[in-house]
C-alpha cells in the first residue's frame, strides 16, 4: 500500500512535470508564432486588452501589462505596479458601493483575500 502510494507519487509528479513541459513548449510556440508584426501592435484590434472593456476591472489586466510590456522602462513598470496594487486595495474595500459586476467578481476571489493579507499579512510581518 505504501509502495503503491510512493509509485503514485513518482508517476504522478512525473506526469505533471511532463505535461507542464509540454505546455511550456506550447506556450513558447504560441507566443512566438502568433506574435504581432512590429507596428501592428498599435492597431486597436490586435492590442491585447483593447478588446475587452472588463479588463480595467480584472486583477492583472493584460491591458495594463501591454501598456508597458513594450517598454523597458523599469521605473514606469514599478510606478504602475504600485498603482495597480493600490487600485486593488480600493476595489477590495469598495464592495458596499454598487460596484460593476466584474469588480464584484474581484470582490469575491480577491477582495476579501487582499484585505486579509493587509490585516493578517501585516500582523505576520510585525511578528
Amino acid at each position, binding site marked *: 500500500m505504501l509502495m503503491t502510494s510512493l509509485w503514485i507519487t513518482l508517476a504522478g509528479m512525473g506526469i505533471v512535470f511532463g505535461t*507542464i513541459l509540454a505546455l511550456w513548449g506550447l506556450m513558447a510556440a504560441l507566443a512566438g508564432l502568433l506574435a504581432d508584426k512590429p507596428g501592428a501592435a498599435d492597431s486597436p484590434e490586435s492590442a491585447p486588452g483593447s478588446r475587452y472593456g472588463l479588463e480595467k476591472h480584472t486583477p492583472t489586466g493584460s491591458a495594463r501589462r501591454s501598456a508597458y510590456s513594450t517598454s523597458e522602462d523599469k521605473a514606469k513598470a514599478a510606478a504602475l505596479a504600485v498603482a495597480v496594487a493600490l487600485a486593488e486595495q480600493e476595489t477590495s474595500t469598495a464592495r458596499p458601493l454598487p460596484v460593476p459586476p466584474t469588480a464584484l467578481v474581484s470582490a469575491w476571489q*480577491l477582495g476579501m483575500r487582499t484585505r486579509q493579507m493587509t490585516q493578517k499579512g501585516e500582523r505576520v510581518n510585525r511578528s
Partner: protein
Amino acid sequence: MDIFVLLPELLKGFTHFTPGNAVMIGVGAALIYLAIAKEYEPVLLLPIGFGCILANIPLAGMTAAEGMMGVLYKAGISSELFPLLIFIGVGAMIDFSPLLAQPKLVLLGAAGQFGIFGTLILAVLLGFPLNQAASIGVIGAIDGPTSIFVATKLAPELLAPIAVAAYSYMSLIPIIQPPLMKLLTTKKERMIRMEYAPRPISQRTLVVFPIAITVVVGLLVPEATPLISMLMLGNLLKVSGVVDRLNKAAQNEIINIATLFLGLVVGATMTASAFLNWGTGKIMLLGLLAFALDTVAGLLFGKLMAFLSGGKINPLIGAAGISAFPMAGRLAARVAQDEDFENFILMHAMGANTAGQLGSVMAGGILLAIVSHLV
C-alpha cells in the same frame, strides 16, 4: 385527536434532536462566523455553514432525496455540474498574459503540486484506503472546484470535510505561507529583482491559448478534460471580446448561482454521523499539511531555478505556484516588497500563480486517472 396524540407530535423536533446535531449546528455557526467576521471565503463558507445547520434539524426532510438539498445534490453534485459551472466563471476571471509573457514560469506550476502526493502518502500511512487518501491529497490542489470534482468521483463520503478544509485553509494562505517563506529563503534571495521585459502578447495568442490548452491537456490527461475545458471556455469567452453577454453571464449569473447551491449542498452533507469522527480531524490536519508541503515544494523549486538562473529568479514566486489564485501570487509579491519596497515581482508571481492553477487541475486529473485505474 386528543392531547396524548398531539404532545409527542409537538415535541418530536426535540425528541429526535441528538447531541451530535447540537455539535454540528455549532460547527455550522462557527463556519458562518469565520465567513462573516474573518471573511474566510464567505461566498462558500457561509452557504456551507448554513447547509450544515439545515442538515442537523431533525425531521426537516430537506436532505432527503426528494427534499430541496437532495434535489440540488442530484442536479449539481452527482452530475458534477456545479464545480464545472464555477470553473467557467473562474476562467473568465483569469488573465494568462503574464504567464504567456514568461513561459518558463509554468514550471513552478508543477512543483506546487507535490503537496497532493505527499499528503496522499501520509493519508495512506494513517490508514485511509487509497480512494479516500487520494481525495484527501487533492486538498493540496488548493483549488476548491478541483478538490470537490475529484472527491465526488473517488470518495463522495468525504466531500464535506474535504471542501471545508480546502476553503478554510485557502483563506489562511496569508498566515500559512509567510513563515515558510522567511524560513526557507535568505533575505538576499527575497531581495532578488527580476527583469520584466516580456514579449508583447497579441490578442491572437490570448485567443488560441485556451483552445490549445484544452486540446493538449485533453489528449495528455483525458480525465482532466472536464475541469480544464470549462476553465478554458470561460477564459475564451472573455478574451474573444465578441461575446460579452456570455462572458458576463459566466462571471455573474452562472458562477453565483452555482456557488450558492454548491455551498448549501456540500454543507447539507455534514450530518453528525458523517462528520463527527476521527477521520474528519485527520483530514483537517492532513489538509493543513498539504498546503504546507505545496508551499515548501514550490519554494525549494524556486530556489533551484534561482540557482540555475544564476540569481535571476526570486524564489518567492515559487510559493505562488500552488495556485490559490490570485491570493498566493499577490502575497509573494507583497513579501518581496516587504524586504525591499522598490522590488516589484507582481507580474512574475501572477505568472507562476496562473501556472499553479493549470498545474492543480492537471494534477487532479492525473491522480483521478491513476487511482481510478488502481481502485
